[in-house]
């Protein structure tokens, strides 16, 4: 570690903004019982002491609290945002104030953001808590020597896990990766409930529009799309799901949503939200079909799901009409894009609810701890199911909720069909 003070090593917008950042982190702590208690105790066993851990997740209050818990467990934490638009400058300042190195400002250009990631890379992290694989893949590209020395990565998102598996398929993943996203406590809660609630919240807060009676299109019916569809529909919207996968399309249909191709769906859509995890989900060939005054927003990882550059090329005029709402005039009609097509719940809202991130970051913290305390082989590993269940139990306990248990005679076993001797002779597998 360098002898330069943390404040000098960091790149943040305004150290003076720290007070409200501290308040926000304290509020997050108060609403994060699992991370603050169960996980804190579990990872404070010495295995993270002195370890260099990079945290590259949307840099706001919940992420900052995760960084402090890792630092309290003895890790040397360096943080940056996983997106040029999502950093809260006051929270970044508070982290530096707490002695954690940060390289991030809100609204930095892509170039500056990438330079920040490389500065994080140059601190030679041993472990990365990554989002979208943003730091990991840039180290693979721009810092191959340091990349080769990584001891492990715990990855947050569907998109990131897919990227890291692609690297593994090409023989370019020299370290173990924990697919934190694939933990039940992550994707079943964060992607569905977290993104569902916070996306609906952000769309309504940015526009001041009503949900009841709206025709809302969800592009992509994965976990994120399911959550958005569920909450929009609960609030009175009629939802149309757009899918390329027949099984997911059938699931959307079975959940009572309409299912259509995107061009057809856009003809009646008041609001369209992308949740594909891919890019250019809504692009040039769809613009003609859009209803006047449609609201377009993105809930997927990339900022390119709504093809904003193509929209800008097609538009006669572009202007900001409300904070976070940009109007594109296309002939006689207008389309309103929220948060410039960036992740609307984060760029245009407060991100996921705290209690959801308590679960997700518990998975990430235990994932990082698992990497540091076990000698895993290179490649993408699933998050241990036992840890998943322990987190769920801790969360239930924090709510004072008790579980039932099965008695011996309630268990369906082969031994009741086969005779006991045969059953035991076949042995346990």
């Amino acid at each position: 570690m360098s002898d330069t003070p943390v404040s000098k090593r960091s790149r943040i917008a305004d150290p003076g903004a720290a007070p409200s950042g501290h308040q926000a982190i304290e509020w997050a702590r108060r609403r994060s019982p699992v991370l603050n208690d169960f996980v804190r105790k579990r990872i404070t066993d010495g295995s993270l002491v002195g370890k260099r851990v990079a945290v590259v997740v949307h840099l706001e209050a919940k992420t900052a609290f995760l960084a402090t818990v890792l630092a309290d467990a003895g890790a040397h934490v360096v943080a940056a945002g996983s997106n040029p638009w999502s950093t809260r400058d006051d929270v970044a300042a508070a982290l530096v104030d707490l002695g954690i190195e940060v390289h991030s400002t809100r609204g930095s250009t892509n170039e500056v953001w990438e330079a920040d990631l490389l500065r994080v890379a140059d601190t030679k992290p041993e472990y990365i808590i990554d989002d979208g694989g943003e730091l990991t893949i840039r180290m693979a590209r721009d810092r191959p020597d340091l990349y080769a020395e990584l001891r492990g990565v715990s990855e947050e998102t569907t998109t990131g896990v897919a990227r890291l598996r692609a690297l593994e398929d090409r023989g370019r993943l020299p370290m173990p990766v924990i697919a934190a996203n694939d933990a039940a406590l992550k994707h079943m809660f964060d992607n569905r409930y977290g993104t569902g609630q916070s996306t609906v919240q952000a769309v309504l807060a940015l526009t001041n529009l009503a949900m009841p009676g709206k025709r809302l299109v969800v592009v992509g019916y994965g976990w994120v799309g399911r959550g958005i569809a569920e909450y929009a529909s609960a609030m009175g919207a009629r939802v149309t799901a757009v899918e390329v996968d027949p099984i997911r399309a059938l699931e959307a249909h079975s959940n009572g949503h309409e299912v259509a191709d995107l061009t057809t769906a856009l003809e009646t859509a008041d609001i369209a939200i992308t949740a594909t995890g891919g890019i250019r989900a809504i692009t040039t060939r769809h613009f003609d079909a859009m209803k006047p005054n449609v609201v377009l927003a993105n809930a997927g990882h990339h900022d390119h799901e709504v093809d904003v550059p193509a929209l800008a090329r097609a538009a006669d005029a572009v202007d900001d009409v409300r904070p976070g709402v940009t109007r594109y005039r296309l002939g006689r009609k207008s389309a309103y894009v929220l948060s410039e097509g960036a992740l609307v719940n984060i760029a245009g809202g407060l991100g996921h609810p705290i209690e959801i991130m308590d679960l997700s970051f518990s998975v990430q913290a235990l994932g990082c701890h698992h990497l540091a305390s076990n000698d895993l082989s290179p490649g993408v590993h699933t998050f241990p199911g036992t840890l998943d269940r322990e987190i769920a139990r801790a969360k239930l306990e924090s709510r004072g909720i008790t579980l039932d248990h099965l008695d011996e005679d309630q268990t369906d076993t082969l031994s009741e069909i086969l005779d006991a001797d045969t059953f035991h002779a076949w042995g346990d597998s």
Partner: protein
Amino acid sequence: MTGSSGRSAMDFAAEFMPALQSATELVRDGGRLSGVRIGVSLVLEPKTACLVESLASLGANVSVLGTSNSTKEPVAEALRANGIAVFAEAGASPSRFTELHDAFIDTRPQLLADDGAATARRLHVERRDALVDLHGVSEETTSGVRPLRNMAAALELAVPCVAVNDARTKLLFDNLYGTGQSVVMALLDATNMQMQGKVVVVVGYGRVGRGISKVARGLGARVVVTEIDPVEALAAHHDGYAIAPIAEAVVNADFVITASGIAHSLTADHVAAMRDGAVVAVGGAGPPEFDPSMGAALEWGDEVRPNVRSLGVPGGPTVFVVSEGYCANTSAGEGNPIEIMDLSLALQLRALDYLTATDLSPGVHLLPREIDDEVAASRLRADGLAYDIATKAQIEARTNW
């Protein structure tokens, strides 16, 4: 934000307010509001500003009052830039607000669009001098219609009042869907908390309470309703909610949201019984619907994040209050959604016109059903939605006995 941001926010809102636009054209044909002095005493933000500009476009002399906790300054600025008299200062002290209120009354409104009967009451109590010019009032809310009816019953009401609130196109939409959505969203936006799995106590099961309960449940909460009216309590039970006396219900609550429209519905004694960390928000009427001065001694603490302040019981729990007990949706958010206010404000405009078109006696009057229907129909038309017209046989069947 500046005046130009207020202007662009108003223009955006106007795009989603087809019913107000239809009502404006209809009233323009009558020509009755031209030259009339109209006072608008509503929450001052982009949607109501659209009503103000509609009235101005009809030739009315409009003056506007905005409260200190809900006024959006850029909007006030945009209205002033358009030559409209605005009496509003965000964050004005109570005494300063009284000054503004009196200056607003000094414009001698002939018609008044009121919210919570705030100005109508002042005119009847402290400012009877200006009451002589007043021709009629259109009242927006449940909590304003109630005192007006009480005044009428006591033979104190000097002018005709139209209960815009009681129109079906208002009550069934604004109170239910509008407030339901906007109060729950304001609470979640202010706290960044999750709704799934929360125990949410809703105090009062009128239209607002129903809307809040529905949205909270839709987002995954377990809702407990408290009521003083046995019929509404029974209705909540049939809608699948738990019912409990408020003193019991608050003990397990994560969120307590009041929607009673009645003062002293949630008090300090209730706060003292809450869990540490519970969040309180008001969705009905402002203070003292939540009355932290009644009962146990409480101490206000810091504003722990924007629009959230801690309130502690010495030696007991600390709870967090959204916007210090003012209506969460207008204080910690932008108020009800645009399309919902489109309906309410179209009704307001039609009510003001109705007051000039008819010679009503002092008292509280309902908006005629035709006007109610026309506003709803104008919105359906704008949305390209068709509905059925009753057949001759149906009309006959309905009137037979």
